């Protein structure tokens, strides 16, 4: 970092980017990035209610979700693989629910392999899926577009 600072200090002579105002802009951007990160890590992603916080079982379920690499095939909020369905609201969707999810986890279904998990592990995975479902709704099917190119739910679900 000493070398980095030396360059930024302009000790290497005049620089196309070493002009004072350019360096100020660079570090203002970095400062804003730090501020943005701090907000994103805290108040701007606070849970709307205690129900959204993952309890112990849900946190164990989340770890299992990673260990089985479920994200290779499944998504939350449209983020993840495309081989299987999005799981954001699987435990609250009509015709599905926690028992449906538990059965698929236990026995597999179609392309979904049997994960060979214990009953406790299946319960933890379902607890995790229920906690995810409590955070919001996906996919968004209301087409309330605004003149600004956004859509209404983007505004209404904001923290």
């Amino acid at each position, binding site marked *: 970092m000493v*070398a*980095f600072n030396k*360059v930024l200090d302009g000790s*290497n*002579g*005049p*620089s*196309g*980017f*070493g002009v004072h105002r350019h360096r100020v802009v660079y570090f203002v*951007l970095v400062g*804003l*990035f730090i501020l943005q*990160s701090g907000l*994103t*890590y805290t108040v*701007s*992603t*606070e*849970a*709307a209610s205690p129900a*959204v*916080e*993952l309890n112990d079982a849900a*946190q164990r379920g*989340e770890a299992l979700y*990673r*260990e*089985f*690499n479920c*994200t*290779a095939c499944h*998504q*939350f*909020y449209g*983020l*993840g*693989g*495309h*081989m299987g*369905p*999005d799981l954001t609201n699987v435990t609250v969707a009509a015709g599905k629910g926690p028992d449906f999810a538990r059965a698929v986890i236990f026995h597999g279904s*179609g*392309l979904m*392999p049997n994960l060979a998990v214990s009953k406790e592990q299946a319960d933890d995975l379902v607890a995790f899926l229920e*906690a*995810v479902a409590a*955070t919001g709704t*996906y*996919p*968004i*099917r209301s*087409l309330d577009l605004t003149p600004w*190119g*956004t*859509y209404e739910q*983007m*505004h209404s679900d*904001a*923290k």
Partner: protein
Amino acid sequence: MRSELTPAKGFVIAGLLSLLCGALFGVIGSWQHVLPNFVDAIPFVKSRPLHVSLVIAWIFLTAVGGVYHYLPKIVGVPLHSTRLAWLHLAVFIGTGFAVIASYFLGRFGGREYWEFPPALGIPIALSWSLLIYNFFRTANKHKGPWPAYLWMWATGVVFFLITYAEANLYLFPHFTSNMVRELTVQWKAYGALTGSWNLLVYGTAMVVMERSTGNTAIARSKLAYLLFGLGFTNLLFGWAHHIYPVPSALWIRILAYAISMTEWIILARMIHQWRATMEDGKNGSSTLFGRFLFASEVWVFLNLGVALLISIPAINLFAHGTHVIVAHAMGSTIGINTTILFASVFFIGERAHSGPTRAGFWIFNGSLLAFWLCLLGAGMVKGWFTVMTDLPFQKITEKIWPFIAGFAVSGIGLFTGLSLLVWGALKVLLASNNKEEGDAHGTVELDAIPVENRCPSMPEKVMQHQR
């Protein structure tokens, strides 16, 4: 006469082999969408991370190889420590084998794109620190103004480490106990991480253009610094278009929307520049690296157009979670990054190229176009039926099947093209003893590059327009 193996060449050769293996696992994974039992021994849950990690490794290895190769020539002094560069390569490759082994054994534990057990992230971060140290100790000796590409590389190497660390914050309960925070921070880190390696790759493109044209003014122009600033701003603040549907604070999403829209400036500049190039009848296609640079411009144009459209929330509503996003990711990593990196590799190789290598160029680009269009088609159909109907996932999957079949078939063409290119690149790299590489610590005057090897490419036109 065979050339001496340098750390830079070691990185590039490892990158090429990584690309070949990654493309092979990509073919397996794509066919598993069509034939679910295809290559049973490597199920999709393994083939996907093998494909993704190896292709990302290709980008890192080759971009870093380019930095190690060009930096001493730009600064005019030897790399601060060749030994540290070798150590970096050894740790990177060793960790890479451990990652691959963990996937084959089904030992996961990380998150999407970095599914390996998080402990393996430690050697990756430590070896990257060696690069940062070596880079700044060498770059600091540069006399006079830093051209834009040095700033791109400096920012890219530092922010890679910062955002890679951020991508591992999920190890702390503060982040994992809240899924909205977990997803938001994950994609914040991934967006910036991608921006970091893009700075390394785009910096390399600028170096190849400069060294092939002999035009040193291009990387020192106000426009070059402006574009760097724009890219840096997007790296820092433009990530949240990945998470419009995630219920985080509104400002996070609106800020990303606003920042993303600044990229229209880049698109407008490209169109302006292109018109000038076409009027002049020059497209830089007389050399293989020139062709790759030109192809990268085409892919930047196509992908930037898609990126801008899907950054508009109303359009993102339909595209998010579909294969449109995959098309964008593939177009960026294969279409842009890979073509730029091949330009760099063939420029380093600087030898006449055989017919099969040139055929590889066309097979690669043609297949990629078909591949990209199939993904866009699948994504648009899926997006429409997902948002506008209540059709279950299985029914929507049936509707996009023809596109997925086309994607799998074109994937074979892509693999064929890449294989020819990798083979050609390995041959020239292992056989070359060119001026650039002859002395690993030497410097090369731009005037020393033969006229026939120079790329009559766009920078000269850009400069004309700036004037």
